[in-house]
């Protein structure tokens, strides 16, 4: 709030509003996040075993599992299913790599109407950009700490 309006800020009212806030169902949310997140990871692990039998190993195996999960994340986003899962699962479907795929694919789809360059391509990272920037940044910090200890 600026200038004269700062004094209008009604702290009593804000306290009253906060008291009325419907409670977030932490237990239920955590449970569904655990269930869905766990399921996605189990599918990943299953793919790992299967591809291991098929003869892949090391980086190739890790890469192949990620690619398959990303593919299904994007596919479910395109089919309009992933947002329904995410609405209930919360972090359970946001944190795994499928959630990252969803955060790239959904703005790409949304802004397609503005063209493939200024829409899809330019807006693709509106959500994921923050994840990439701070992911890389915290990676660097952790790397520096690791170097010294």
């Amino acid at each position, binding site marked *: *709030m*600026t200038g004269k*309006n700062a004094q*209008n*800020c*009604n*702290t009593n*009212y*804000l306290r*009253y*509003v906060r008291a*009325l*806030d*419907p*409670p*977030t169902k932490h237990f239920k*949310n955590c449970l569904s996040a655990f269930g869905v997140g766990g399921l996605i990871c189990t599918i990943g692990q299953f793919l790992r075993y299967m591809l291991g039998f098929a003869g892949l190993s090391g980086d190739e195996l890790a890469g192949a599992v990620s690619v398959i999960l990303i593919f299904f994340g994007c596919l479910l*986003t*395109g089919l*309009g299913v*992933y*947002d*329904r*899962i*995410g*609405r*209930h*699962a*919360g972090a359970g*479907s*946001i944190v795994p790599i499928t*959630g990252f795929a*969803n*955060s790239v*694919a*959904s*703005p790409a*789809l*949304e*802004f397609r*109407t503005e063209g493939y360059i200024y829409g899809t391509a330019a807006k693709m990272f*509106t*959500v994921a950009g923050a994840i990439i920037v701070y992911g890389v940044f915290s990676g660097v910090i952790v790397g520096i700490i690791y170097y010294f200890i």
Partner: protein
Amino acid sequence: MKKGNTLFFKTRPRIRSYAAICGSKEREGVIGEYADITLSDDMYGESTYEKAECKMLSNAISLAVEKGALTDGDIDVMLSGDLLNQIISASFAARDFQFPFLGLYSACSTMSESMLLAAALIGGGFARNCVAATGSHFASAERQYRYPLELGCTRPPQSQWTVTGAGACVISADVGDIAILNATLGRVRDWGVSDVNNMGAAMAPAAADTLIRHFKDTGEQPSDFDMIVTGDLGALGSRILKDLMWEKGYDISPNHVDCGEMIYKVIEDEFQGGSGAGCSAVVMNSYIFTKMSAGLYKRVLFAATGALLSTVSSGQGESIPCISHAVELLSLSNGNGAAP
């Protein structure tokens, strides 16, 4: 005539005709059977949601003009606005018509603002027939104000669901069953709520301010009305409004109705109910005007509420200034009309 911030229309401008279009989720609710067109496909046969919103608004306007047995040439001006940047839906819809256009922006209170201005133009003798219209679309509002549709994020329990729909009415100098008696101009109120997911709490003080000034200026009491209709406060905002009014000595709980609270039948992802410019536009132009035309509701006070924020202001941590304009409506029908 003017007293305080309330305009009294001596000539009693009438609502000649009205039309509403609503989306697939809305037609499941109470307004489904009252709306003129209900969409099974929220794209409305268009390639983008913005075009669909524009088409809904345009069709609602032409339908209202048609139902009033008027042609484009009879309309003096169209007053309209919507939620999108640069009010593109309203101005793009206006290119389909031959009459002049005045663009308004008052967020979700556009319906009452446009009715108020139309009544003032007619009361002042500057126009005979005016169109007041507005609309919104869930998908286009989501894209502008929140996240991409397909992004898998959770909605907080305070949040509301933008209504897909458009409503239009023709306000006329002499013909019509519903008269506009007076209207109170809104003041922008900001009590410091900055949570963009809690619009009801942000808008309730503006609604309370307008209603109280309306009661003071007109000397009426809440019990004089069959219905006090607010725009899109939602369940939480309605509760806050009742508390705020109670504190000032007005008990509106027996006859208060909120368009956002009543529009959806099953509360699933909508949580607190509907919001958006289309919310009050659709409910008023279908359910409430139909009931008023039939004489089932005699006297209705309509106060739509709007949150005047943008993604830039909320990103910069500003609180949410809100506004509410009130319009008092009287049914001239004798009450013998067959219940629809």
